[in-house]
């Protein structure tokens, strides 16, 4: 647990505080994401934790112990620090960079080598290719990943990560985030994580702290930040599309309507036709006897058709997995103009259905005390 108590930092020569009276508690085993505008004091706040810069006033405690009372070397060794400027040692190979702390701790050679290779693979770099490179022979994103690997080398219980994935492409970033979260699930480290990417903040953070000009503006779960932003600044920061961003947090299974209306391929077309007409439906999903999705039927197609609906099924490709996030579902929904998306499990069993209303029902608020239809939009509609 890292606890900041009224922490203030004023750089000599500056008139304003870089970090101003911050109270913050990062719970044991949690990831606390720091976000905020450029220059708001995120790096400064971090660097006070491992005593790279002195605190002007206030105190920081780790696991209840004031950091000023701890042995500074041990303090820093117990903290993995990913530097914003990357800061690889230019005179050391990639392998030596990663092995820096293990070597300080006098791990034996084989263990070090194994760990280096493991970490290189973790950050998606081929050990055989990169082990003996020097930093100047790396691309920006590769160097950044080596920086992350170096900080993780000894699996320190606390990590300070200053924009660790900032220079990495989306695919690799997602892989790294997932790997990292995977590790975090097993070894619960206490992590302070800076990012400028709200999606990353939402994905990685158990808590998010939003700073502005050295002060804490809001501290809470990603959910809280998106749903109840404390003020206009927070709203601006998370973006006008914050409702959409909340979809990142949610899974299809949280929002979908379970057991949606459908028929079976063995049902008689006439009966289904009548039913659809009665309910005013133009389409209906069709499953087999095991409830596996087969497709859908179009009202038109079964007019004057006798036999089972199975003969008139059209394939349904707009499906999502109940575990996917709602963003993806929404995107699929918008990819075609039908306004729904169907959730099937890994056995292709129909498990739910989503439309925009159901999405809004999860992330949105009720606008009027009573639901109702706005009706079909009349393009170029005249005044009534």
């Amino acid at each position, binding site marked *: 647990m890292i606890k900041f108590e009224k922490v203030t930092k004023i750089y000599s020569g500056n008139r304003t505080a870089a970090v101003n009276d911050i109270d913050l508690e990062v719970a044991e085993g949690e990831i606390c994401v720091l976000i905020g505008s450029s220059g708001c004091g995120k790096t400064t706040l971090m*660097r006070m934790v*491992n005593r*790279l810069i002195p605190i002007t006033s206030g105190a920081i405690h780790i696991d209840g112990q004031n950091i000023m009372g701890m042995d500074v*070397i*041990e*303090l*820093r*060794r*117990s*903290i993995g*620090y990913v*530097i914003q*400027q990357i*800061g*690889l*040692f*230019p*005179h*050391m*190979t990639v392998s030596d960079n990663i092995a*820096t*702390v293990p070597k*300080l701790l006098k791990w034996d050679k084989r263990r070090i080598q194994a760990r280096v290779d493991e970490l290189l693979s973790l950050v998606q770099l081929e050990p055989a290719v990169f082990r003996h490179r*020097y*930093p*100047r022979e790396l691309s920006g994103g590769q160097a950044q990943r080596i920086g992350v690997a*170096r*900080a993780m080398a000894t699996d320190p219980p606390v990590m300070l990560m200053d924009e660790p994935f900032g220079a990495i492409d989306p695919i690799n970033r997602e892989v790294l985030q997932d790997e990292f979260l995977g590790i975090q699930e097993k070894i619960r480290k206490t992590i302070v994580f800076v990012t400028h990417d709200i999606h990353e903040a939402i994905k990685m953070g158990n808590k998010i702290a939003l700073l502005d000009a050295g002060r804490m503006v809001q501290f809470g779960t990603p959910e809280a930040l998106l749903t109840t932003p404390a003020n206009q600044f927070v709203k601006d920061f998370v973006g006008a599309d914050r409702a959409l961003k909340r979809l990142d947090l949610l899974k299809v299974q949280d929002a979908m309507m379970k057991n949606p209306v459908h028929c079976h391929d063995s049902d008689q077309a006439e009966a289904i036709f009548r039913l659809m007409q009665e309910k005013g439906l133009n389409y209906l999903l069709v499953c087999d006897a095991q409830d596996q999705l087969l497709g859908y039927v179009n009202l038109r197609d079964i007019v004057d058709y006798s036999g089972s609906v199975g003969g008139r099924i059209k394939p349904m490709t707009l499906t999502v997995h109940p575990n996917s996030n709602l963003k993806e579902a929404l995107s699929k929904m918008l990819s075609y103009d039908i306004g729904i998306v169907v959730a099937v499990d890994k056995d292709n069993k129909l498990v739910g259905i989503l439309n925009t209303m159901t999405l809004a029902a999860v992330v949105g608020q009720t606008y009027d005390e009573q639901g109702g239809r706005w009706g079909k939009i009349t393009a170029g509609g005249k005044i009534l």
Partner: protein
Amino acid sequence: MEIWQFFMQNWHQTLVLAWQHAWVVSISVIIAMATGVPIGIWITFNDEAAETILYIAGIIMTIPSIALFGIMIPILSIFGHGIGTLPAVVALVLYSQLPIIRNTYAAIKSVDPNIIDAGIGMGMTRRQVLGKVQLPMALSVIFAGLRVAVVMSIGIGAIAAYIGAGGLGRFIFSGINQTYGTMIKSGAIAVSLMAIAVDILFGCIENRLVSKGLRS
């Protein structure tokens, strides 16, 4: 040609003197490195000491060798080594301090603070930051100081002759006194050859020690 003849005629003495010269200089350089580099490192931690130490090293460097010997003879005579190799070595060690200390100091001070920061942030002790970060990165400038000191030592190693420690200075001073040009030149050439040889040696050591990652 004359010089070649001179060497042929005096090869035995040349070898003896060269050996003495090399001996005095090697010991001096080793001691000078073993003292100057640590002092240069130490004063990076202590800015006040830095000034003082550098001024002292500067003062020492301005003392003429003869005067230095004049001071040392009575002192070292106490241990029965008022003249000979010991005072010569002491003099060379003292003279080498300034270039070594100053370069070590300047080199370490000019290492990119961001990189040092990375080391400190990883929990390196001061000593480790020094050994693993600052020294390796400062190495080429430190070597510049060492190489100046070594060449200078070989050059002023000639003064060892003043104090009975022999060396190639003997050729030079005898030659001067005898207005014997060939002898002077032979001595000077022998000294220069030795200086170049040792400088090349140091160049190789530097090449091996300085990380490939630092070369552009």
